[in-house]
């Protein structure tokens, strides 16, 4: 196994149309037209992108219990930088080189301005010392997103097939098919499917059969 560092590329692209970056029955991440993109590379292989543009994140972080539904869907308008790691092959067909005007639309005077911001996010996610990774073959389409939030931390979405982890400031949502764990500031819900669930609230213990 050859261990190498993930690195940010330097070729800045723009999206030529809206792209659905990830979609399942639980949620979707989309990026709009004219968003800036800079590749994340491992060796010469493209492993993801840092984007800056308009988009949206929808996530049904709702748990159904016999006593009723708990949780609210996440509906975030994306309008800044975010990072994605995953299969980028299909995406490359919807990208074109960005020119000065494209950068200016996003508020950057120079390419370096965007690269600096992307590096900040990259460092925030991977750590300043850099992260080592390895590659291998497979048709495993896992995807990872990191969205900076208002606290300066990252909301993270990790998904592969029906498995999903979403960790944000005010909630954690873990699901695997019909098994779900939702943690909010006021309660923790563990659902084992068929609406069987355990709801733990502050100063309250509630069990559904």
């Amino acid at each position: 196994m050859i261990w190498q560092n993930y690195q940010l590329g330097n070729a800045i692209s723009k999206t030529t149309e809206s792209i659905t970056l990830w979609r399942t029955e639980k949620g979707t991440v989309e990026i709009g037209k004219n968003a800036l993109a800079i590749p994340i590379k491992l060796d010469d292989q493209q492993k993801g992108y840092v984007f800056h543009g308009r988009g949206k994140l929808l996530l049904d972080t709702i748990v159904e219990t016999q006593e009723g539904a708990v949780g609210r869907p996440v509906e975030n308008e994306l309008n800044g930088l975010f990072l994605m790691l995953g299969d980028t092959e299909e995406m490359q067909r919807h990208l074109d080189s960005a020119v000065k005007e494209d950068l200016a639309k996003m508020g950057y005077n120079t390419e370096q301005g965007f690269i600096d911001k992307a590096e900040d996010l990259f460092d925030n996610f991977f750590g300043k010392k850099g992260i080592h990774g390895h590659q291998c073959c497979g048709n495993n389409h896992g995807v990872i997103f990191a969205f900076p939030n208002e606290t300066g931390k990252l909301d993270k979405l990790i998904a592969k097939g029906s498995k999903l982890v979403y960790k944000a400031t005010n909630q954690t949502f873990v699901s695997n098919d019909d098994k779900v764990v939702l943690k909010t500031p006021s309660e923790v819900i563990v659902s084992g499917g068929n609406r069987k669930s355990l709801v733990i609230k502050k100063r309250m213990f509630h069990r559904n059969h």
Partner: protein
Amino acid sequence: MVRIELSEDLKEEMKKLREELAKLKDQLRDVTEREHERRHGIYIDVGNRIRDHVEDVMESVTEGIQGELEKSIFIGPGGVRITRRRETPEEDEAKLNFPKAAEVMSALGQEHRLKVLKELIGGGKYINELQEKLSEITTSTLSSHLKVLEEAGLVVQEKMRGRYLITIPGRTAYKMATRITRFLERGNQE
């Protein structure tokens, strides 16, 4: 303070949930693990970092559950007991959020909205399914009612599938409306 002794099967249920959570944790770990046997495509693995993220999340959830259980449950030699402070009616009234209470009561104060809640108690439904049950009103009126119920927190809509689900407060509110109505009807008969 009140103490409610719970049956042995709760302990068993908690044990099962812990085991299930551990299984879920293991399955989620798979997200970051290599799969050599796969033949095509590109597999993204950023090594320990992502594994750490998943671990962090699961730790956070597990700690949250344990923390809340420790706060609310006393485990002694006699078994599991819930320790819970019961508020006096005066405290309940003093804490009542009047604007929110008015919003909820207002949302309940319409016959068709109550019918919507009744339909949703049976499980999540798409708007066309609700429309079939409430054929006396138009789709736009039904949408307006759903919006009111959603704003009051009695109903939630899935963004991806579009189904409407009744929330725990929604179910409680419907039960409350049913009980008050029955109580009043009984009073009138007497």
